[in-house]
């Protein structure tokens, strides 16, 4: 086990959760962070799906990395990701139809997620399968927790619910409280992500740029 989780692999797995977070530090996958964070449930499901797909495609690309012709490597990566997403979506339709209906558009959106291409190009192309797998898991979870954090505030303040269950009591509405409709708009996701980046940089000196 000590060999499996050395200091370096530990950094590979845990780094993306904070100091090397795909959204707040690498600034990848912002587009989907806008699209799926109006509610907690799709955000969570998207996070889990992306984690699985990044990990699997990282492993595949890492296994193939010595054979991939340099000039078409991006195309090869794209084909691997697209094939993987299509296969997963077909399996969901056959064995977990309800889930696939809920995910509908999000499954397709995974292909366009910059985190996938970013990690394949930056990590899997030059690292061994096990590290690539951990990198995929780490980045997927790093992506997922930001999504869930943003969705938590957007759903709570925008709809007064969490996972679709009403949490803000009716009494509060009766005395004049209203849901913040602005929270449901995509730009609020950016503002919330910016708040997370602000807090994160304030606490981590090494992330601050000097200018």
């Amino acid at each position, binding site marked *: 086990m000590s060999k499996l989780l050395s200091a370096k692999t530990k950094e590979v797995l845990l780094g993306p959760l904070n100091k090397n977070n795909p959204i707040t530090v690498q600034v990848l996958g912002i587009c989907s962070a806008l699209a799926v964070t109006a509610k907690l449930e799709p955000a969570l499901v998207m996070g889990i799906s992306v984690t699985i797909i990044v990990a699997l495609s990282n492993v595949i690309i890492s296994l193939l990395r010595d054979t991939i012709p340099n000039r078409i490597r991006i195309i090869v990566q794209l084909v691997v990701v697209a094939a993987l997403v299509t296969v997963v979506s077909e399996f969901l339709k056959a064995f977990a139809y309800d889930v696939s209906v809920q995910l509908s558009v999000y499954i397709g959106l995974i292909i366009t997620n910059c985190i996938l291409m970013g990690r394949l190009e930056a990590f899997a192309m030059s690292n061994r399968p096990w590290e690539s797998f951990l990198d995929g898991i780490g980045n997927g979870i790093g992506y997922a927790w930001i999504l869930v954090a943003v969705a938590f505030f957007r759903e709570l303040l925008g709809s007064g619910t969490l996972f679709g269950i009403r949490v803000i009591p009716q009494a509060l509405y009766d005395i004049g409280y209203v849901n913040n409709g602005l929270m*449901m708009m995509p730009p609020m996701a950016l503002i919330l992500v910016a708040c997370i980046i602000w807090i994160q940089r304030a606490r981590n000196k090494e992330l601050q740029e000097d200018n």
Partner: protein
Amino acid sequence: MNTNKNSYTIIYAIIMVVVVALLLAFVSGALKSKQNANVELDKKKQILSSLNVDLNGQDAEALYIQYIQKAVVINSKGEILSDDKDKAFKIDIVKELSKPLENRELPIYVATVDGQEKYILSTRGAGLWGPIWGYIAFNEDKNSIFGTYFAHASETPGLGAEIANKDFQQEFIGKKIMNSDNEFVSVAIVKPGQKNTEKDYVDGISGGTITSKGVEDMLLKSIGQYESFLKQNAEGGIQQ
């Protein structure tokens, strides 16, 4: 091996494409029948949902047989073309909508709930981002709504997607689609707080105006196709 040679690159690309194509074709072929069965089961669940049947943990297949007594195919004049239950079930409403009105074959599912007949009509329209569809069940008077079910392909979560929410669907219960002169007017969907004095109305979804309008439009057009049927003598039920 030199992986930068042109010949290597081309052969690599060809092999990759063939392997991936075979894989996808195999997966799709192997799972097709299971997927189709799922789609049919889901359609049955949707139809049952319009009757406000609780499907949690229930065998939808058995419930469908229990509730849906018969299904018929009618044309826009209200004449019955077929009373084959399977034929009605297999009608693709999207294809029918592309035909001229008088050639369309429209399904009606007849259910019995607490000893009373309910008529379930199929609806389809457009939301903001993609198609929306649903089933709408009428009481024996063919005028007041017994229950509805709406679904969507890709409306915005939290906004337009709320049409799939039970709270929204239940607003329709008891609304009438005919006005006092027995003219077909459908049900209006208004901005929350506003009123419509011409016909029955329900509150739309804040921030989901285009999807709400889409549902209103869908109801007007889809139920409109069945107008002649709905105006037939309610006492007689479905006339053979």
